[in-house]
């Protein structure tokens, strides 16, 4: 597991995360096989299928949901179940275990009510994959809110995603990195709370960057008015 010691005193060090995709060799042709594998695969597999769309389709609007929902809706054509899976709120779950259980519960509920299962056409099987994540430093860091805004504008989108998505769910830090630093190092509790309320999964990445920059900009203006 990556170290959580990324803040030095008052400095915020922007990091970035890159994923390499491993093929597990596991495939599912129907929902029974899907849920059977979902119970046993490593957490890195659940992470991959709920987050790689965010990486690969980061400019699409509206964004496709997680892989499970996409496969169920578009390949198995079980639209109602697909919608339920797409609606699973990733922000509600503090760990991948909890997220996995929630997804399984939705599918199991459907299986308990259904007698006939649709099978994916040949070539449309669900392929289970796994992310190997590499956490890297960037040369960008901030010691105050103005520098933070500058960094936020400069770093790659995968860096923003790392601090917003991965720190919380993949590394189980309970909070996103930005909110933690804003609150504990800068004493910007209000702004930290505003960051927490943003649902990063509903934005394109570029849209997310703009949203966060807008909030920081507004706060900087308020602070400067307060000083004047």
């Amino acid at each position, binding site marked *: *597991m*990556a*170290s959580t010691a990324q803040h030095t005193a008052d400095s915020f060090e922007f990091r*970035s995360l*890159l*994923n*390499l*995709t*491993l*093929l597990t*060799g596991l495939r599912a042709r129907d929902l029974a096989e899907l849920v059977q594998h979902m119970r046993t695969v*490593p957490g*890195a597999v659940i992470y991959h299928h709920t987050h790689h769309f965010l*990486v*690969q*389709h*980061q*400019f*699409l*609007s509206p964004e*496709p949901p997680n892989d499970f929902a996409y496969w169920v809706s*578009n390949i198995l054509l079980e639209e109602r179940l697909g919608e339920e899976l797409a609606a699973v709120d990733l922000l509600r779950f503090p760990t991948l275990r909890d997220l996995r259980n929630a997804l399984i519960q939705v599918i199991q509920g459907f299986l308990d009510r259904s007698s006939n299962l649709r099978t994916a056409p040949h*070539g449309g*099987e669900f*392929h289970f*994959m*796994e*992310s*190997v*994540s*590499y*956490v*890297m*430093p*960037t*040369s960008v860091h901030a010691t105050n809110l103005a520098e933070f805004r500058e960094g936020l504008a*400069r*770093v*790659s*989108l*995968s*860096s923003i995603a790392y601090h917003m998505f991965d720190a919380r769910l*993949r*590394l189980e830090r309970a909070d996103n990195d930005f909110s933690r630093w804003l609150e504990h190092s800068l004493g910007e509790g209000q702004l930290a709370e505003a960051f927490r309320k943003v649902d990063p999964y509903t934005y394109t990445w570029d849209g997310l960057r703009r949203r966060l920059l807008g909030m920081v900009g507004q706060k900087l203006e308020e602070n400067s008015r307060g000083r004047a």
Partner: protein
Amino acid sequence: MAGLEEYRPIVGEGVVAELRLLGERLSGRSILNVNSTRVGGGVAEILNRLVPLLQEVGVDARWEVIRGTQEFFDLTKRMHNALHGKPDIFSAQDREIFNHATEQNLASLDLGADIVFIHDPQPAGLIRAKRDLSNKWIWRCHIDVSAPAPGAWEFIAPAVEKYDLTVFSAPQFSRELPVPEVLIAPSIDPLSDKNRELRDSEVEEVLKRIGVRSDKPIVTQVSRFDRFKDPIGVIDAFRLARERVDCQLILVGGGATDDPEGAQVLREVRERAADDNDIHIVDLPPTSNVEINAIQRASTVVIQKSLKEGFGLTVSEALWKGKPVIAGAVGGIPLQITHKYSGILTHTVEGTAFWIKMLLAAPEFAAKLGENGREHVRNNFLLTRHMRDYLLAFLYLETPHERVVEL
């Protein structure tokens, strides 16, 4: 040849910085690429670009090519087809030819590198050197080996199973193996002649040369004259669409001169087009990269109506030019297009005709698909992403059991 800095305006500062940092982590590590040809084909094209870029970020990368007799390359061509599913029988003599060529290359090649990166089945047997060298070996499979002809996979399996890591282009092209498999899609180079930005005058000059006027919307398919690319189906779909929207079709192909089946398909295409003035059939030599680039840029809608496909990188080429693409949902195409988000996936002539009409009638929607498609390619199918994945694969060999690695 373009250096890494020239990619910065295209992919952004962060991506270039990440590549440099990954390079630093692998600094001084020697990586030897081995394939079977220096020119021609997608693998050579990519290595020509990647090796200098890897060197630029500090990796000691080099590239060797195996040698072999005509007999050996005839055999590996048969192997290639059989791995794709064409029935064949491999004899003890075939095995001897393969082993003999492998031995000769083992004797002549310097395989002393920290990582030996073997591309495709032809040089796969070189893994024999691993026992003495104690280095790491990667096998990169550029083809679909999911449904080979009986006996074909068994021919190379004993070698492949000795590698430390294997790489496939799409999950559906892979097969279950006792060694780790990673997914690394191929890529296009945004700075190559086939994909670089062109001036309007360059595009117009090419259109003039092939006798196409830009006075009505242009629908285009770029691909070899091959039945799996369904050029006849493209003509039929175009004609159905033209009943409702005025437009013209360009079918761009090449390589028909030295391929008897291609020549036959081209004849059939000409017959089906007959004397239709709205259908332009353009047979270009394989080096016509700027011409293909210009035709794609001049197009209103691009089609790739494949019935069977490898990865189908022509789709990414068109998407990169911001074009709305209608393509068959086969091979690697669904990885490049998410239906109605970044393009259109179809299964029939009628469906293709329907979407040609729709996209010509709804230019705002078509533009949105093109815009989404271009961004999807920017993030997933450019050379810089390919290079990043290779660098990560090299790093993976150092910690194969870790799932979160702090660099």
